[in-house]
């Protein structure tokens, strides 16, 4: 207030405020997602650590694996498995992080009483729950995809160095590796399976997280177990188990198969086939219902 230019009386406060009076929902969602990344750093630390450990192991094992390799053909055979393994390991890490994240997302804020602080801000329960479900359905898949691609690229570079040392033609090696093809398939798999097909699983975990009075992990995994047990003893059937297996196995095994041309795998036909799977839409409907319930529940929930 020392500068003469600052002699603004009380009145302009209203107009200044008026200018910012409405913050778009997208902005509130964006900052809420960033908040999740501040709180749960394992979302990016865990996949990065998995990638780093894998790369380290690959680096150590590389000379050993390459010992008998004299042709490019052999090199491809030797290197194919580690590439898939790297992607599987990083995606698996992301999947596990997603499970633990979802179970804690709406439970942790009640346990540490910070829900009272978050509820004192103009952010609706809907935006809060949406920001939390974005993590396993969008952020983690894209993040694990990016980390997996970079990891595979680094593996490719490392093996190229070894091949160069043996005087093999690295250019042909790269041409045959079809790196782009692999990445595209990985992206297709991650988006369809982790982003869409698994949505009801994360919806269930978030609902439990919003509801559980304590021990969300137990509440998430015990009921399915009980349902399976009751169905088995009373009806001697396993429909529930089959349903879970169907959900966990993914829409169709062929989409995860590494061989075949890009066009074949993500052709309009495959995508159309995926989009016309009733299981996808049933799953998404269930996910929406579970998330809606979580939004309603959060309104009633206070600290525990």
């Amino acid at each position, binding site marked *: 207030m020392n500068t003469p230019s600052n002699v603004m009386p009380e009145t302009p406060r209203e107009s200044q405020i008026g200018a910012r009076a409405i913050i778009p929902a997208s902005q509130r969602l*964006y900052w809420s997602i960033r908040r999740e990344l501040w*709180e749960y750093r394992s979302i990016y630390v865990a996949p990065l650590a998995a990638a780093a450990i894998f790369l380290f192991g690959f680096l150590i094992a590389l000379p050993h694996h390459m010992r008998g390799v004299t042709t490019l053909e052999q090199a491809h055979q030797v290197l194919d498995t580690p590439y898939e393994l790297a992607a599987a390991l990083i995606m698996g890490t992301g999947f596990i992080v997603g499970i633990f994240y979802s179970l804690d997302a709406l439970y942790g804020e009640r346990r540490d009483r910070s829900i*009272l602080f978050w509820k004192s801000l*103009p952010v609706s329960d809907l935006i809060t729950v949406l920001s939390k479900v974005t993590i396993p359905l969008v952020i983690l898949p894209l993040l694990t995809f990016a980390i997996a691609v970079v990891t595979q690229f680094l593996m490719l570079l490392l093996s190229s160095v070894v091949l160069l040392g043996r005087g093999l033609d690295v250019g042909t090696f790269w041409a045959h590796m079809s790196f782009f093809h692999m990445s595209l398939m990985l992206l297709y798999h991650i988006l369809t399976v982790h982003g869409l097909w698994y949505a009801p699983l994360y919806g269930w975990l978030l609902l439990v997280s919003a509801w559980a009075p304590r021990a969300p992990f137990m509440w998430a995994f015990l009921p399915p177990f009980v349902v399976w047990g009751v169905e088995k003893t009373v009806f001697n059937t396993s429909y529930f188990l089959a349903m879970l297996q169907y959900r966990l196995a993914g829409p169709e095994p062929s989409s995860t198969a590494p061989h075949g041309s890009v066009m074949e795998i993500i052709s309009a036909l495959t995508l159309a086939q995926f989009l016309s799977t009733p299981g996808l839409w049933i799953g998404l409907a269930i996910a929406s219902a579970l998330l809606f319930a979580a939004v309603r529940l959060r309104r009633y929930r*206070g600290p525990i």
Partner: protein
Amino acid sequence: MACIEARGLRKAFGTTLALDGIDLQVEEGRILGLIGPNGAGKTTALNAIVGLTPYQGELRVLGRDPWNERDQLMRDVCFITDVAVLPRWIKVSQTLDYLVGVHPRFDRAKAESFLGKTSIRTSSKVRELSKGMVAQLHLALVMAIDAKLLVLDEPTLGLDIIYRKQFYDSLLNDYFDGKRTIVVTTHQVEEIENVLTDVIFINRGRIALNCSMEEIESRYLEVAVRPEQLAAARALGPMQERQMFGRSILLFDLANRLQVAEQLSAMGDVRKPSIADLFVAVIGNQSGAAQGPYQGAAR
């Protein structure tokens, strides 16, 4: 439009009635102290006002229904329900970033200038701050929000006297401008007594007394009665009688009988009762067995 308007506000937990028909009207620019014993329903009432709990009856806060419009209401309302609710993992700078991102009325520069007066560094995490510093941080955040209503539920619980004093000092000097409304509950009544413009005593889910401070000053009187006048003073119907340093202190409600004040001043030393003494007199009469004929405070 009144800032808070409640009619027949009720809330039951199982068979216990936490709020048993509260009627309330808080005008803009008031600083209201909500005072009551443990379990009286203070927190439930405040939670209903800020949209944390569903209720029966009518309640409008700034013209909105808090339970169904919490997020819109929170643009104009701030609350601190406890000192320890800031998440422990968050950095001070992150709280500022987040509030700028989601709160249309948050003024970052203002918050930073409040924080500059404390020893809190923006690079610190909440978990690294002492309890008093967390309260300072929370208050700095809240004071940087241009809200119409601030609700404080035991905001200084567990803080030492220096932090408590600072808390209310900065609230009054740097925040309150005569237009905002503040509702506060605390057990340390004597610390906020001179801050308040209005007082509500609440007991067992009901309002026992609803009074402005001016009204309290003109209506209630405490007399340290000389022993020889004791019988005459008692005949005037005190709300409460207690002993202090061998003298009888009698507390009178002079509603509709201000002329009695002159009679009383002849009987001993007259003074204004403290809120705490008045509280004990009003609530003590309600919860205990018959302690005199006093009935007049509830309205």
